[in-house]
Structure formats: structure tokens, C-alpha cells
């Protein structure tokens, strides 16, 4: 068996592929690529906001993510063979998306029909709090809620999403937001 590479410091290999890298380095690259995705999205938002104002930037962001989140969800479920139509399935899917790497989240599954997800120290919220323009109302209250509802509906339209905690957060709290998922009926 060929020895797996810890990096690509050796000579140019015309047949190089990521399959030749060790698990440890693959995990590091995945984490960086997840961060890359967040940076790409954030940089576009800020550039459009600078040139055309926040209303246009938010409209674009909303329009893009309501489409893109389902693409990502489909792709993650296919790769990870996640199937089902309850809250457990939804939580597994949310654990598997690229956002898992950059968000500090805890998943509490009360039973297959009821779960709570808590986000701590969200980097986007920290940025929005520093900016101080109140954009967290749009991003966390409107866009995130919509995206979480879309993700729930993807598995089962009877899964209801309820925000238990939303920004602005209490002083000293590390909880950025908290969401409850319930399969009704």
C-alpha cells in the first residue's frame, strides 16, 4: 500500500490527487474549505452592501441561500446516506453540512420527533455585534429562520421550527441562538 502523504512538500506529481493525503490533512483541508465558503459568502455580502446598500445585499443573500441551502442539504444527505422524515434525520443532516466545521453547536435529541439545537459563539453574530448596525435582526431573525424552516420542510412539512433564543443576547451569555424542532401530529 502506498504511504499516505502528510502534506505536498515533495516534488510535483502529475498524478497527484487528494486520495493520496492522510486522513489528518484531509480533515484540516475540509475545515479550511468550510471557512473559505463562509468567507466567500461574507465577502460578497460586504462588497455588495458597500456598493449598493444593505437592502440589496440582504435581498441577494436571501435569494441565494433559499436555493443554495437545499442544494447543500441534498448533496450532504446523498453522500452520507441520510434518509428519513423525522427530527432525528434533520439533526443528522445538520451535523453533516459544511457549516458544522465553523459553528459551535450542540444537538439535543429529546426523542425522534423533538430536538433542540444551540449555537454558541457564532462568528457571524460576533461580527454583526461589532458592526453594531442591527443587521442581526435580518440575518438571525429572518434569514436563519427561513433557512431552518426550509431544511425542516425538506424532510417533512410537519416539522415546525421555533426560535427559543435569538439575538440580541443576554450580557455574558455564550448562546447565540437556540432552535426547537418538533414533528407535529
Amino acid at each position: 500500500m502506498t504511504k499516505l502523504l502528510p502534506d505536498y512538500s515533495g516534488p510535483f506529481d502529475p498524478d497527484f490527487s487528494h486520495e493520496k493525503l492522510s486522513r489528518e490533512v484531509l480533515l484540516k483541508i475540509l475545515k479550511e474549505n468550510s471557512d473559505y465558503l463562509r468567507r466567500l459568502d461574507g465577502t460578497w455580502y460586504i462588497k455588495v452592501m458597500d456598493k449598493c446598500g444593505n437592502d440589496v445585499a440582504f435581498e441577494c443573500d436571501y435569494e441565494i441561500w433559499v436555493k443554495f441551502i437545499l442544494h447543500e442539504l441534498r448533496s450532504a444527505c446523498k453522500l452520507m446516506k441520510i434518509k428519513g422524515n423525522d427530527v432525528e434525520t434533520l439533526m443528522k443532516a445538520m451535523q453533516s453540512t459544511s457549516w458544522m466545521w465553523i459553528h459551535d453547536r450542540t444537538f439535543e435529541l429529546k426523542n425522534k420527533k423533538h430536538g433542540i439545537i444551540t449555537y454558541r459563539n457564532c462568528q457571524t453574530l460576533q461580527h454583526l455585534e461589532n458592526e453594531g448596525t442591527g443587521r442581526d435582526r435580518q440575518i438571525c431573525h429572518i434569514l436563519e429562520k427561513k433557512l431552518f424552516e426550509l431544511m425542516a420542510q425538506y424532510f417533512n412539512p410537519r416539522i415546525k421550527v421555533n426560535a427559543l433564543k435569538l439575538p440580541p443576547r443576554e450580557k455574558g451569555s455564550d448562546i447565540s441562538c437556540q432552535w426547537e424542532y418538533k414533528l407535529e401530529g
Partner: protein
Amino acid sequence: MSEAIHDYSGAFDPSFDHGRLDRETLVGLLRAYSNYIRKLDGHWYLSVMNKCGNDVAYDCDIDVWNKLMKFELKVASEMLNIRGGGVSSVAKYFQVSPWFWTFKPRLELKGQDRLEVTFDKCPTLLALEKEGSGRESQICSDMEQELFKTIAHHFNPKIKVAALKLPPRRSVDDICCKWEFKIERKR
């Protein structure tokens, strides 16, 4: 250490993380992330273009990539320890970059100081050709040229970048574009 899993078809695990997945699945996820990056960028461009026109979208695209390309170069070359000022470092970067992975460029090292990069397939060009508004002259010649210069100069400011072939192409069987990275040495 517990055995690596191939997928997440089993029961919910509150402490699941990607570190439990086997190498094959990790590579599959990398491919998917690479695809997300390209798609997300394209969605942003089109959304801004539809609302504010192509000039604004193009300006934003340039600003975004001026910033991100430098970040990506730093991360990729540090993480994979790609160093050295030769054109082979540029070739290695093309192989590992999450952006270029979806394009699978053909890399031909012609000696120590010359590299040819051929893009046989390019989903961006296909979309632009379908759109038919001629935007490829901006994206493929102006913008790519600048980005490729940024890549080359990250490794060595003396590397010159030249386009050997650019769109428009005669047929869909034709290559999409071809670039040369070259170090000219004084004799």
C-alpha cells in the same frame, strides 16, 4: 480508537464529527465543498447582476477575489507545505486548490521554468456561452489573467503569465483556455 465510518446512515450521535468518517468519504466531501464554493460564487454574481447590472457585479467579483485568492493561497500553501519559487509550486497549487479542483486543469511542466495549464472543461465558460452576452471576455481574459498573476506572484514575482488561448472558441470540443507560466532567466 473506534473504526472509521463510511456514512451517517446509523442512529443519531450527539457527538458526531467528521473525524469519524473514512478517507473515501472525506475526499467525497472535499469534492462537494469545492463544488459549493464555485456555485455559491456564481449565485452571488448572477443575483447582483440581475439587481444592479453587470458592471457592479463585475466590480464586486474583482474585489471579492482579490481578497479571497490571497487568503486561499496562504492557507493552501501553508497547510500543504507548498514552498519554493519555481513554476512547479504553481502547478502543485492548481492541484490542491478547492477552486480549481472542479476544473481539473491539465498541467504540463516544460522543463524547470515553464508550465502550461490547459482547461479542457470549464462549467463557468459553458454557462457564459449559454448566456450569450459576451461576458467571457471580462471573466476569462481580464479577471483570470489578474488572478493567475496573483497566484504566480505568491510564489515568485518573476513568474510571467501569458494567455496562449482564450475564448471565444470555435466549437464545444475546443479547449476552454490555455495559459503559460514562465520564468525568464538572464543568460
